[in-house]
């Protein structure tokens, strides 16, 4: 996938921006709060149909100022085809036209949650990946979550307790499918995640295991799910909630037998988050047959030279079109980025020091 032109009008603080990104690496430089991330977000809305920051289109509207419609357009090439994308929102209705959903991988400082946050962050990553490529997964997940909510409420309300098990067939049916797909993706992601971690961290090797929610082993058939639920029946009555299911899954990452999530160093957690995201990039590339667009939002400054090189080697130096935001330009050597400056919602070619002071490994 090649993005050739992006037009943004009235999106958050961006009045009128037109960007022609490089085929390989594009650098958006500017101080915080001037609109760098808004540009990435607009591209995400175009290519993915939704933001990575909010679920409400209303948040895109420019404030302050009179209400003006948001108009986003993009042109690019997918394989041999010319493609255009457009998105409009006037505060009431949204229109998204033309252009397929194409894979996008965003790295942001929040990704550290994958390596040190709650299990929900890791479940969320798998759900996001799968929902993007498998519509049945998205539907099953939603139906499963609703069935669990209904059942949990029934378990809590004295008068409705009798109804709890009427939601079990739906829980078992949808939950089993959610597991089957999550196990599959986990098994596919793990080897590349380990390879990348090892490449960055040198001597250390990470291992990981998939922890099935509420059960010591994987549950791979409806019958086994029913058995596992039956085994926790007493507990469920006491705790008044559904204790076995994908809604309680986790992934445990360990180095030398110690959990990275609970006992890892900052460096280990950063490397892990990076390895996980790069593994999802490779997975999406293989799964969809399209090279994802990669956006690094404000992460390069947080990475040391070795990790920065690892990211860029995997994406920009591979074949991914990459857009990076940073507070200052860095030397990317052979990658020869197109550099733009973002200031007060406007975009212009970088006119600063042609030889950046901050030399990195490139």
């Amino acid at each position, binding site marked *: 996938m090649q993005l050739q032109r992006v037009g943004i009008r009235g999106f958050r603080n961006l009045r009128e921006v037109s960007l022609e990104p490089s085929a390989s690496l594009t650098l958006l430089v500017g101080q915080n709060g001037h609109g760098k991330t808004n540009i990435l977000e607009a591209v995400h809305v175009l290519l993915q149909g939704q933001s990575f920051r909010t679920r409400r289109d209303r948040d895109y509207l420019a404030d302050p100022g009179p209400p003006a419609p948001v108009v986003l357009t993009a042109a690019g090439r997918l394989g041999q085809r010319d493609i255009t994308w457009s998105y409009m929102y006037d505060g009431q209705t949204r229109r998204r036209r033309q252009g397929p959903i194409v894979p996008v991988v965003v790295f942001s400082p929040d990704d550290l949650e994958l390596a040190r946050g709650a299990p929900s962050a890791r479940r969320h990553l798998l759900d996001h990946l799968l929902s993007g490529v498998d519509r*049945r997964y998205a539907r099953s997940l939603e139906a499963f979550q609703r069935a669990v909510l*209904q059942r949990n*409420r029934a378990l809590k*309300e004295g008068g409705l307790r009798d109804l709890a098990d009427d939601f079990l*067939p739906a829980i078992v049916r949808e939950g089993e499918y959610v597991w089957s797909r999550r196990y599959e993706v986990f098994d596919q992601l793990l080897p590349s995640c380990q390879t990348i971690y090892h490449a960055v961290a040198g001597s250390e090797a990470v291992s990981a295991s998939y922890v099935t929610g509420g059960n010591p082993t994987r549950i791979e058939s409806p019958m086994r799910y029913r058995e596992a639920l039956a085994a926790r029946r007493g507990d469920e009555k006491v705790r008044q909630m559904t204790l076995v299911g994908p809604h309680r899954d986790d992934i445990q990452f360990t180095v030398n037998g110690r959990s990275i999530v609970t006992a890892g160093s900052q460096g280990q957690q950063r490397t892990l988050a990076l390895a996980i995201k790069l593994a999802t990039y490779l997975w999406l590339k293989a799964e969809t047959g399209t090279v994802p667009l990669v956006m690094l939002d404000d992460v390069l400054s947080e990475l040391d030279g070795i990790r920065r090189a690892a990211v860029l080697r995997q994406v920009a130096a591979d074949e991914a079109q990459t857009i990076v935001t940073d507070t200052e330009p860095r030397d990317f050597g052979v990658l020869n980025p197109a550099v733009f400056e973002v200031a007060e919602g406007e975009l212009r070619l970088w006119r600063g020091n042609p030889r950046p002071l901050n030399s990195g490994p490139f």
Partner: protein
Amino acid sequence: MLYPEPIQDLVGELSKLPGVGPKTAQRLAFFLLNRPKGEAEQLARAIVEARQRIRYCSSCFNFTDTDPCSLCRSATRDKGTVMVVEQPKDVIAMEKTREFKGRYHVLHGAISPMEGIGPEDLKVRELLARIGQESPHEVVLATSSSLEGEATALYLGRLLKPLGLKVTRIARGLPMGGDLDYTDEMTLLKALEGRQEI
């Protein structure tokens, strides 16, 4: 600037209707004000009339202006079969098939613990009483195929089976004229499970 109070009241009342937001309510209000006076009065009368004359049928709990309703009074309808549906509009939909000759029972909702809706809030006790009196030989569960509709059907199945009558669930599957490759996996799966010999 605010509208005169009568207009504000009208817009306020209209925007309580389902699917009507403030903008649409405003449009409807101005439409009514621009029509001949008689039309607005006719609408007002129709609303009052319907509200006064329509009630639940004491037998099937469908909306009716006579009790029992015309379906429950009809001598040609089979007393031996009762079809349980969620809403009055489901009765209309089923009647359009002209295939079902039994009687109906309208639950007025489906079980949904999240919204605090249990069997007590539906016409379930009334269904049991009715089965006790009329002793049909078959109850057809025609609640919707949503999560809540399914749970309601399972619940009723558990309740009615021990009474020794035939309890059936309407089949799910392909819509007529539907292409196989446009059908989602869940529907296909159900269609396959419910396949019949020809």
